[in-house]
């Protein structure tokens, strides 16, 4: 049944129509959604951006990254530090934040890419925790309390402030992230990620610089994460280290896995499930995380390519 549904939407034309329909619906949604629903959807859209970013690393390049929240944190804290501690303009602070994320990507990726995949996973986890401990213990990051009073971005005189404004910002970000993911996938670099993931040696024999290609995946992923973090910080107006915990990394990873690694629509679906699911089950309390964990395990055992897997003939 479900497979036939996917098959139906396998044609690019139908996919485009479906996509446009979804975008139009999403754009109109705040007219009928209450504040709560809009907030949750904003959160889901943030996760779409993060999950698509992690998907570049895990889904495309096949590198298990358990510290993705670190990139998210670098984006959020760069903006926070520049605007709060140094009184920079929000928009001016974005380029340095992105540069910081790229540097973080190189620092984390660089020395570790020679490692075998399971070591890589644990090292990224360690880096993620180091970033969080750093944020918690440094003066410039506001220590455990974090940074508050991050100014609301001013867009040519219009102050982006209400929850609806941020909904549209994240909708825009998500659309850009989808387009960017799609274009990356169908590019020289995107193919190189797949080559390296499938067979490193054969890829190298084809003249592909394995380390460089993987590094590009980390840096690309970190830029996605940083964009998410930048607007996350602007939206909440305050950030603290606990938002960038290991659990956050795991949730984003779950979104990628649930939806199906590598496939854009699947990852989007995964992000929505990860955010909307728990809200629907809010009163399940702790059980919801257990539920997610069990679902994740079952997916790995029974349908390892996710709910909406990558299809190839």
């Amino acid at each position, binding site marked *: 049944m479900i497979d036939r549904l996917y098959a139906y939407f396998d044609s690019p034309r139908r996919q485009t129509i479906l996509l446009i329909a979804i975008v139009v619906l999403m754009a109109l949604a705040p007219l009928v959604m209450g504040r709560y629903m809009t907030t949750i959807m904003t959160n889901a859209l943030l996760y779409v951006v993060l999950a698509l970013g992690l998907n570049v690393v895990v889904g495309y390049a*096949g590198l298990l990254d358990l510290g993705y929240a670190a990139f998210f944190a670098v984006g959020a804290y760069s903006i926070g530090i520049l605007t709060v501690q140094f009184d920079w303009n929000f928009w001016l602070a974005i380029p340095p934040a992105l540069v910081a994320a790229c540097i973080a990507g190189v620092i984390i990726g660089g020395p570790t890419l020679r490692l075998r995949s*399971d*070591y890589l996973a*644990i090292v990224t986890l360690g880096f993620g925790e180091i970033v969080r*401990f750093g944020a918690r213990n440094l003066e410039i990051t506001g220590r455990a309390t974090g940074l508050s009073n991050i100014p609301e971005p001013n867009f040519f005189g219009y102050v982006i402030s209400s929850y609806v404004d941020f909904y549209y910002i994240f909708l825009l970000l998500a659309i850009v992230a989808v387009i960017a993911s799609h274009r990356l996938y169908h590019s020289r670099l995107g193919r190189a990620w797949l080559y390296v993931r499938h067979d490193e040696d054969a890829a190298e024999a084809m003249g592909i610089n394995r380390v460089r290609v993987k590094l590009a995946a980390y840096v690309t992923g970190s830029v996605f994460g940083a964009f998410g973090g930048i607007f996350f910080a602007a939206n909440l107006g305050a950030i603290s280290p606990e938002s960038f915990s*290991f659990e956050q990394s795991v949730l984003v990873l779950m979104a990628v896995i649930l939806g199906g*690694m590598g496939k854009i629509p699947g990852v989007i679906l995964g992000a929505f499930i990860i955010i909307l699911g728990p809200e629907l089950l809010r009163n399940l309390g*702790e*059980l919801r995380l*257990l539920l997610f964990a069990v679902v994740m395990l079952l997916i790995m055992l029974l349908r390892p390519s996710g709910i909406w897997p990558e299809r190839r003939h």
Partner: protein
Amino acid sequence: MPAGLTAPAPVRFNAGYGGLGMPALETFLQAIVNGLVLGSFYALIALGYTMIFGVIKLLNFAHGDVYMVGAFVGFGALSLVSGVVGAGWTGLFIAILISMVAVGFLGVIIQRVAYQPMLSAPRLSILITALAVSLVLQNGALSLTHGKYTAFRTDLGFGGFEFGRLFISHQAMVLVATAAVLMIALEFFVSRTMYGRAMRAVSIDKDMCRLMGINVNRVVAITFLIGSALAAAAGTMAGAYYGSIWYFMGFLIGLKAFTAAVIGGIGSITGAMLGGLILGMLESFGTQIPWIGSEWKDVFTFAILILVLVFKPTGLLGKSEVERM
């Protein structure tokens, strides 16, 4: 109220040891004792990582949580037997044994249900599966305990030996001794028994073992049984020693024990023991360095992990992997 707690404050030594009141020797010895205790926990858990990695080349993310489950099973067992034998040393030893057996089998079940079907899948898939198992155990315990700390009460008391400022509790001594006995028993098992030798053979070449008629599946199962049982023993002892258990207790220590296994050389049993001790000592002494505040302690451990993995991934006693292709 336990004896000794209300004793008047001891006479203070005058500062004169670089600002430290405590004589350097005693500080040093105390750090060794602390390092031994920590190292025993790390080593017991690291053994599981290393053994499982040896036979199926899997980094078992769930191992830290097996330790946590071990603590809860030990707690349950102690509650059951304390009515009969009390919550003293006897009760605790029985609880440890029960926990080891029960959790050992849990390890085998995990291996059969979650890992066995994934052995031929891509590496990324089995890693994620291991992560999922870890999350299931963690959140299962979270749901059962509602995320609260469970007090692990024993009648062991707070007694100990005191030499000046150096203080060694009875519990710490028994703990280190128990860990040592378990490790010696393991060493004996691996080097002298048939299954132990089979285990080493499987870790070198699985296909060859199959040809030679070794039941590889059984060897893998026994490895999980022993690895998990050791973690369960560590978990129960930690519960009794620290006095409380909770669902998240396996996360950090799991990471650290993994670090210990890596330092010693993953795949090497002696390496895991050595690595555990070294990491325990490093942490114990590292945090005495005045300019590394205790808030940076875990960063210190992670930094060691990353440095070792990047610069000497084979660890101290590990064998280098066969060249590619």
